[in-house]
């Protein structure tokens, strides 16, 4: 391993809160080993040093919200052998995709004193809508262990273990009691992608859907049940319109209840 050239890794930021990059910095115990096996060539959140050239792995955080960024992502794609998007913003448009449901100029006018200086696209879109993405790692923020797992899997040529089944499976393997059945707490677990180790249900909270839709999500059935246990249309809209608001299954479900 040591004789081989270390793969070059770059981290890129688009419209985001930097939380996913921080997950990487958060890998305190593993960071040194990480640096042993990977050359971190570009990681603005960690260091200003930049090594140019072709990157073996690019981690992309954030969504595309400006025309400048829509250009920039193509450059990055050209420089990257493997491009991995990390987090809700990069994989689905993020919380800022709430603008996609309304007229963005309204927000701009509300927030900025001189809206004429703001140049922004109407929609916040995932990286996948712009360039080919090799792998998507979900979460808001991503789970650091999953990030290490993906990098480790890539380095050693195996398939990453990041199952796309429900949060319920992690929740029940952990031995948690179902908060929805036992406490009547609305929970998005049954339609949400695993990866957080069932964080919220482990503390008796309902799942917020931070990891986005799971494989084959049956959101309509869950929404129906939520209402049976007391949720309003507005509750359902707000639940699905969170960090993964613009992910297709969640978007459709929120829109279905908005009209009612």
């Amino acid at each position, binding site marked *: *391993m040591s004789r081989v050239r270390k793969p070059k890794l770059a981290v890129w930021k688009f419209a985001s809160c930097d939380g996913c990059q921080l997950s990487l910095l958060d890998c305190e115990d*593993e960071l040194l*080993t*990480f640096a*042993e*096996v990977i050359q971190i060539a570009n990681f603005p959140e960690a260091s200003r040093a930049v090594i140019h050239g072709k990157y073996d792995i690019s981690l992309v955080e954030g969504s595309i919200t400006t025309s400048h960024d829509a250009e920039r992502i193509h450059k990055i794609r050209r420089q990257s052998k493997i491009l991995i998007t990390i987090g809700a913003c990069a994989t689905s448009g993020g919380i800022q995709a709430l603008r996609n449901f309304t007229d963005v100029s309204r927000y701009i006018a509300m927030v900025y004193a001189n809206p004429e200086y703001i140049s922004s696209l109407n929609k916040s879109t995932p990286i996948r809508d712009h360039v080919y993405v090799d792998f998507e790692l979900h979460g808001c923020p991503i789970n650091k262990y999953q990030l*290490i*797992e993906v*990098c*480790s*899997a890539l*380095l*050693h040529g*195996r398939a990453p*273990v990041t*199952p*796309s*089944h*429900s949060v*319920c*499976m992690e929740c*029940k*393997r*952990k*031995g948690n*009691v*179902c908060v*929805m*059945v*036992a*406490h*009547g707490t609305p*929970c998005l*677990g*049954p*339609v949400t992608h695993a990866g957080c180790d069932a964080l919220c249900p482990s503390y*008796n909270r309902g799942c917020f859907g931070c990891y986005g839709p799971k*494989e*084959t*999500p*049956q959101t*309509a*059935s*869950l929404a*129906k*049940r939520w209402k049976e246990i007391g949720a309003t249309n507005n509750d359902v809209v707000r639940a699905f319109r969170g960090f993964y608001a613009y992910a297709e299954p969640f978007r459709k479900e929120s829109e279905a209840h908005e009209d009612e």
Partner: protein
Amino acid sequence: METKSKKQRILPAGEFNVFLRVLQDAGYETIGPTVQDRTIVYDTIVSSSDLPAGWTDEQAAGSYEIRKTGKSLLFDFNVGPHAWKKYLHRADLLLWRAKTNGSGFSIQEEDDSPSKKAFIGVRACEVAAIQKQDKIFLKSQFTDSAYQKRRANTLIVAVNCTKAGGNCFCASMNTGPSVLSGFDFALTEILDDKRHFFVVEHGSKLAEELLNKMPKLEEASAKECALVREKMNEVSENMGKEVDTKDIKQLFYDHYDDHIWDEIATRCMNCANCTMVCPTCFCTTMEDVTNLTGTEAERWRRWDSCFTMDFSYIHGGSVRPSDSTRYRHWITHKFAAWHDQFEESGCVGCGRCITWCPVGIDVTKEIKNLRKSKATV
């Protein structure tokens, strides 16, 4: 309960701690029902004060609640969200580790020496479930060594249900409400105006030895034994649910193409909760992981579910990509294919899949619907 030649004895409820002590002194960690997070779950118990005295549960499709009864009964409830499989057939199990030394590698079996555990309050359906998993892991062509070690270190203190839950149908599945085999101890809790006691039956040599370590327990009278029988008949009559099991295997095999599966798929979220809480569901997946430097690898075995896409993945895709066929696979396996595989049903009638389905899909109702539906072959 059928009266066997074995003597039944009376354990006053006040002496339940003495009983627990005997088990603990014999080296067993005692595990039983406790109240946690507004549910009754299995956990380590030290004394009878850890038991849910005065609590009962109310279960319906997709709902579970506990409430105070005002009585002092210790086991006045049915089964909770956890099956005993969490102790015997672990949700996450490290099978082995491997290390590389350049070109080669060596594999080290995980040293796994489980402690002795006494399961307190195992219900008839749960004993049946353990026996079904025994059949898979111990009595088929291959033995599962991790399960075997745990099972060999397990003592079963069964408790007959003296109340039937809203989602119970063990009577239909012929697994309860009375515990008839597969136990070390079988207790029936009785509370009348004057007395609160357990009728105790032992079902193993080990249990007999342990009983002998107790202060002498009086023998149950014919009247007391009759009281137990009466109670059990009453429970049997009051099952919350029912399944007609006549020709049930063929019923499923005749309905592979039924439209009913598509309808269920509009409700079923394929979240896999039913399979996680089911005490007989045994499926697992293997996960191979490495450290970052690639010098160490591990293989983990974890509970898996036939509701996931990966479960039936062969190169090219999932064999059962439709939600409808994944539900169909699960229920058909449980009620039909299991008969072909293990010569019995895979369902014990505990009702957990009904209670813990977040949207309350009720297998007993679906089976009724299936019976009404015309076979489309």
